[in-house]
């Protein structure tokens, strides 16, 4: 029996989402068509839109469905920032933000990358200060999936109000784990992903405040109110909607439960591997389901392989296309050296994780770490 502790890479599909999707996998029906099949697909997509909007306190019409959070982040950045306007973001963002910012900079939109402290936290004052005149957009991830830090999005929004700077937040890692209300946060755009919520992969959304002048990046048909062309992935969106509905209902209980698992894990690691060090925030706020630890003298790659061979899935660093783990750019931005960053392990849990899963990791990890150290010393 495998133990899956890599929910920040992707959560398993919720049975409820799967059930909801099944009828739509076998049905014809383009949501834009006039016939009954089309109408049924249209209704299902709009119901899903309602669930996704409800999860973040938004109106359904403001939700733009995409092929995932990477597309949502691309749409937010490229759709708002027109060179020579400026962009501000932080050093610990997901690659879909950082690489897009780099591409925009090459196209003539200067980008300021705000640094973070040793716990992976960005200062609101630093972000606000970086928003010099000419800045069109600040993009600030709500929560970091590698170390669990939470950004002061609401404080940044309050300080930027009236300054003509739009605020985008990649909320992928926070969704279903932190309460999110776009109006309380004060953001203008917010990215979501279905598969981090227990929906299917390949589906996401960008929430766009009504008064944002968003330039579509995919042009074609009139889908998504002209903001994102392309025939809807009806089954995928239905799965996303159901996952969002369930995540909203379960949010408080899941967050509290995950926090107890992570506390148990952190305490267990402190006892069994006293020299291991936690990377990330020492207190709240933080993601309740994420623990990142450096095990000194142990290659994270070796730990991941040995744990995988022992039936436990965790991650190290940021995976490239082939699955090789580069030193995490988040840990490097936090001031860790490359060797320390290569000795990091990320464990992320979810609602289906059990206490027995965590205890199994706690039982195996010390043996595995000892073996890696023996091998490294030989």
């Amino acid at each position, binding site marked *: 029996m495998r133990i899956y502790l890599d929910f920040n890479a992707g959560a398993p599909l919720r049975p409820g989402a799967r059930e909801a999707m099944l009828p739509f996998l076998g049905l014809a029906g383009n949501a834009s068509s006039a016939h009954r099949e089309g109408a049924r697909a249209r209704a299902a997509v709009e119901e899903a839109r309602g669930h996704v909007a409800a999860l973040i306190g938004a109106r359904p019409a403001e939700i733009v469905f995409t092929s995932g959070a990477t597309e949502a982040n691309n749409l937010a950045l490229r759709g708002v920032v027109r060179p020579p306007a400026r962009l501000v973001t932080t050093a610990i963002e997901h690659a879909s933000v950082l690489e897009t910012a780099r591409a925009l900079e090459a196209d003539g939109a200067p980008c300021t990358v705000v640094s973070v402290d040793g716990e992976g936290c960005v200062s609101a004052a630093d972000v606000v200060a970086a928003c010099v005149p000419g800045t069109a957009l600040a993009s600030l991830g709500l929560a970091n999936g590698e170390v669990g830090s939470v950004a002061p999005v609401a404080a940044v929004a309050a300080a930027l109000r009236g300054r003509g700077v739009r605020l985008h937040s990649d909320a992928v890692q926070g969704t279903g784990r932190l309460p999110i209300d776009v109006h309380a946060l004060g953001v203008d755009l917010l990215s979501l992903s279905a598969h981090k919520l227990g929906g299917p992969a390949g589906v996401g959304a960008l929430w766009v405040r009504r008064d944002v002048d968003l330039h579509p990046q995919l042009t074609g048909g009139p889908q998504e109110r002209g903001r994102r062309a392309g025939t809807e992935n009806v089954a995928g969106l239905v799965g996303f909607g159901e996952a969002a509905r369930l995540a909203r209902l379960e949010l408080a209980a899941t967050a509290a439960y995950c926090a107890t698992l992570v506390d148990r894990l952190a305490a267990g690691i402190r006892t069994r591997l006293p020299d291991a060090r936690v990377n990330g925030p020492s207190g709240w706020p933080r993601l309740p389901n994420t623990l990142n630890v450096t095990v000194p003298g*142990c*290659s994270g*790659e*070796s730990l*991941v*392989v*040995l744990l*995988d*061979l022992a039936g436990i899935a965790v991650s190290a*660093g940021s995976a*490239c*296309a*082939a*699955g*090789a*783990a*580069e*030193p995490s750019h988040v840990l490097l931005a936090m001031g860790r050296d*490359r060797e320390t960053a290569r000795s990091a392990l990320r464990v992320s849990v979810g609602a289906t994780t059990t206490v027995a899963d965590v205890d199994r990791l706690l039982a195996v990890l010390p043996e595995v770490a000892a*073996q*890696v150290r*023996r*091998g*490294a010393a*030989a």
Partner: protein
Amino acid sequence: MRVVVAMSGGVDSAVAAARCVRAGHDVVGISLRLARDGTGSCCSLDDFLDARAVADRLGFPHYVFDFTDVFEREVVEPFVAEYLAGRTPNPCARCNEHVKFGLLARRARELGAARLATGHYARIGVDPESGEARLRTAADATKDQTYFLFALTEGQLAETLFPVGELTKAEVRAEAAALGLPVAQKPESMEVCFVPARDTAGFVERRAGLDALRPGAVVDESGREIGRHGGVHRFTVGQRRGLGVATGERRYVQAIDAVSGTVTAVPAGQLGTAGLLARAVTWAGGRQPAPDTPVTVRIRHRNAPVRARVSPLSADAARVCFEDRGPAVTPGQAAVFYQADLVLGGGWIAEAIP
């Protein structure tokens, strides 16, 4: 026992892995991401997918490790520095010494493996007197790769398996085909894996920057200038192309002086040398041979070994005198000494003895 198999995505390491599986070992396949930008021929996603497909077919786990830091430090940076210094580096030998049988061997131990297996064409024998492991040439002399493996110590060899060392390339392909491995007919890669489009000069120029280059004169055997060149990194001893001189007679690079930026080009008949001096020399079993020990020596991978006498000069230096006036000697390449199929030792060519 657990065996880590280093898998390039090619047919040799695939068959090496298959043989380890057949021997009943607990096989873990590892592929290495080496080049950072991935613009060369190696470590492309396709190679990783090929290795993964072989692992799936044979039923063992496979992982990709990120070795870009160590590869950059131990292989790419010295490669650039050697060219700038007027030498011709041998990145494959360095990669074996520091990357595959260095950090990867350590990773294998970390994973609890008793052995690291690779698809190299070489064999490991046992010294009857000491019981120590010794490097021997491959059964297929045309494929032998001991030239790139000479620096392995007995300790490293004792933890290594070369499962295809007894096979010919044709036998390896036949075995892969019989097992239904998807890489059975995959072509071999010959070029330096991290250099895109075989453009070594361009690679060195991009890496080093124009200020680091050493342009200068092309001179003939009497020291007379017969042309100009854009940098010593563009040349290797024995090279004919790219000299940009038209003296009627075909000329070949005989010597490269990076300090003055001078490249000496001579007619083919004057390229020969009497021998060479080698540095960073290691000896099988750590035992220095007597002065003037008869050996055959290989001084470039593609050249056949020639007869010579080798004499240790110090703990890690040696002089090699060719029996017959020898071939062009290329500083930066390895000189590997053989007695029959046994690798007696080897080192790095510091300079030619005219």
